[in-house]
C-alpha cells in the first residue's frame, strides 16, 4: 500500500554496514557491506577496524539501497538508525550519517534499539507481529528472551546470558576445532555429518534451582575444549563432526527448551527467533519440532534478515512512524548500552503531525 510509511534504516552496531528500505511491512532493499573478512584473521570483531569500514561503506551502501529500492531519498517518510546497544564507535558512524541525511532531506529521525529491530524484522517476512510475541534473540552479541506486546513501546527482558553469548560459544568452539571465524556457519556445516548424541555435553542453567530463563554457555564451551584437549593429549583423532554436532545439540536444546517454557509460562502462542544464530539449521529444525509439539506458532525470518542488517532498523522505524511515535532529536547519542526496554529514543518534544521535522 502506497500510504504505508517509506523508511530507510541504517545499522552499524557491529561489523555490518547495513542499509535497508521498507514500505510498511514490505522489504524494498537490504544492502549490506560487511567487514567480516577483515576481522577473520583476528578471530573476532576488532572495533576500530569495524568503525573504519563503516565510514568507507556508508554513503555507497545508502546509494545502493536507494537504487535497489527504486525510490528517491526525497520520498522517504523517515530515517531510522540503530542508536544502541552495540560498539560505541561503530554506532556513532551510523548515527551521525542518519542525522545528516535526515537533516539535509528534511525527514524525521528515529534512533531505535538494535534488539527490538531484530524482533521487528519478522514483519517483513510474516506480516504484522502478533501481540504478544516471545522473542529469542541469539547472536555473537546477544542471547535474550524478550516478551513484547507492542514493539514500539513495550519490550520486557525475561532472561539473558550470564556469561557468553550463544554466538560467542560457536566462535570459541570453532577456534578449538580449528574451523575459523565466524564459527557459527562452520560448526553448522561440520555438524551435519556428525552424531549429535556422540558426546553428552552439559546443558547450562537447566537444574531445578537455576534461573528459568537465563542462559550460560561458558561451561559448555570449556567442556568442549577439555574434551578435545583430552583426545589430543591421548594422541587420538578428534572427531570434529561429532564434537560440532554434540556441541550444537547442547546449545539448541537449552535455547529451545527455555524459549518454549517462557511461552507456556506467559501464555504466549507465538515465538520468533532472530539474531545470527537463528541461521543455524539445527536450531531452526529443533525449534520447529518443539513448537509444533507445544502448539506454538514459530516465526523465523530468512537467514539474511536474522543477521545484522539495515532492513530490520527500517522495519522498526516504519512501525514508529505508523504508530505516531516521537522522532529523535538532533543531539541523539549513540548509546552502547541502550537498555532493551527502550525500543526507541524519543525526542524531548512530543510528536507533532506526521512529517514532523526541524
Amino acid at each position, binding site marked *: 500500500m502506497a500510504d504505508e510509511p517509506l523508511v530507510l534504516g541504517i545499522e552499524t552496531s557491529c561489523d555490518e554496514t547495513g542499509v535497508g528500505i521498507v514500505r510498511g511491512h514490505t522489504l524494498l532493499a537490504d544492502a549490506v557491506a560487511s567487514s567480516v573478512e577483515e576481522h577473520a*584473521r*583476528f*578471530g*573476532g570483531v*576488532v572495533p*576500530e*577496524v569495524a*568503525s*573504519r569500514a*563503516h*565510514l568507507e561503506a*556508508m*554513503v555507497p551502501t*545508502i*546509494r545502493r539501497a536507494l537504487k535497489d529500492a527504486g525510490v528517491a*531519498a526525497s520520498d522517504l517518510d523517515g530515517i531510522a538508525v540503530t542508536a544502541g546497544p552495540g560498539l*560505541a*564507535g561503530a554506532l*556513532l*558512524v551510523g*548515527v*551521525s*550519517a542518519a*542525522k*545528516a*541525511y535526515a*537533516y*539535509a*532531506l*528534511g525527514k524525521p529521525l528515529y534512533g531505535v534499539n538494535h534488539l527490538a529491530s531484530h524482533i521487528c524484522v519478522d514483519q517483513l517476512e510474516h506480516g504484522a507481529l502478533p501481540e504478544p510475541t516471545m522473542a529469542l534473540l541469539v547472536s555473537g552479541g546477544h542471547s535474550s528472551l524478550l516478551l513484547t506486546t507492542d514493539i514500539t513501546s513495550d519490550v520486557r527482558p525475561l532472561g539473558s546470558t550470564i556469561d557468553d553469548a550463544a554466538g560467542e560459544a560457536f566462535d*570459541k568452539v570453532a*577456534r*578449538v576445532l580449528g574451523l575459523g571465524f565466524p564459527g557459527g556457519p562452520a560448526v553448522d556445516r561440520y555438524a551435519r555429518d556428525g552424531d549429535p548424541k556422540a558426546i553428552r555435553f552439559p546443558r547450562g542453567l537447566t537444574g531445578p534451582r537455576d534461573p528459568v530463563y537465563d542462559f550460560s554457555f561458558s561451561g559448555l564451551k*570449556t567442556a568442549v*575444549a*577439555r574434551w578435545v*584437549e*583430552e583426545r589430543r*593429549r591421548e594422541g587420538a583423532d578428534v572427531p570434529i563432526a561429532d564434537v560440532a554436532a554434540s556441541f550444537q545439540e547442547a546449545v539448541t536444546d537449552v535455547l529451545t527448551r527455555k524459549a518454549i517454557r517462557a511461552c507456556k509460562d506467559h501464555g504466549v502462542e507465538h515465538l520468533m527467533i532472530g539474531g545470527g544464530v537463528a541461521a543455524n539449521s539445527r536450531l531452526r529444525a529443533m525449534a520447529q519440532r518443539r513448537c509444533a509439539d507445544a502448539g506454538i506458532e514459530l516465526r523465523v525470518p530468512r537467514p539474511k534478515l536474522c543477521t545484522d542488517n539495515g532492513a530490520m532498523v527500517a522495519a522498526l522505524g516504519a512501525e514508529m512512524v505508523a504508530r505516531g511515535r516521537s522522532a529523535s532529536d*538532533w*543531539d*541523539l*547519542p*549513540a548509546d552502547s548500552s541502550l537498555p532493551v526496554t527502550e525500543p526507541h529514543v524519543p525526542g524531548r518534544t512530543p510528536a507533532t503531525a506526521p512529517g514532523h521535522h*526541524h
Partner: protein
Amino acid sequence: MLLLALDTATPAVTVALHDGRDAVAHSTVVDARRHGELLLPAVDRVLTRAGAVVGDLTGIVVGVGPGPYTGLRVGLVTAASLGDALGVPVHGLCTLDGLAYAARDGGLTGPFTVATDARRKEVYWARYDDAGARVTEPAVDRPADIAAQVAGAPAVGAGAALYPEVFPDVRPPAHQDAAALAALAAGKLARGEEFPPALPLYLRRPDAQVPAGYKQVLPK
C-alpha cells in the same frame, strides 16, 4: 555561494558558514567526548543564525584530521552524508592547516609548528614556513622524538601546550575554528586549487591484538 565548514578532529566541535567573502556564522564547543551529539545541532544553529536553510549550501568543507578517530569520523561521515543528500561537493582539508591559517590570521609570522593532542603521550604535528605553507606531511610522534625538528620556532595548538619542555613558545589559537577552515577553503576555491580527498588521516594502524591461539583449559 554558501560553504559549510566543519571539523571534529580535535576536542573542538566547530562549524562555520562562509559566503565567499566572510564567515557569516560560526559555532565552536570544546568537548572531546560528545562530538556526535554536538555536531548536527551546531550545523542547525549556524544555519539559523545566518538566516539560511540547509538547501542553500553549495559545498561542504571538512577537516580530515589527523585526530582521534572516533571524533574525526563524526565530522567526515556527516560531511559525506550531507554532501550526498544535498548533491553538493565535499572538500577535505588538513585539520592542522586550519589551525595554521588561523594563527597567521592572528598575526603570527615566521616559521612555526602546529601540534594537536594525539593522546597516548603523542602529538599530531606538521611544520609551516614563513609564508604559512605546510612543509612536512602530518605525522604522529612523541614530543621528545621531534624536539630537534621543532626547536627554535613557536608552536600553535592545544597539543603543543601539553608539552612545554618541547614547545616552550606556544601561540594562539589553542583550538580549531571552522571559520578559519572555511576561509582557507574559500580562498582555494576562488583560486581553483585542488583539495585533498575528504578521507580520514588516521596515521596509525588500528589497534588489534591477534588472539594467540585459544586458551588451554586443562592444567599443563
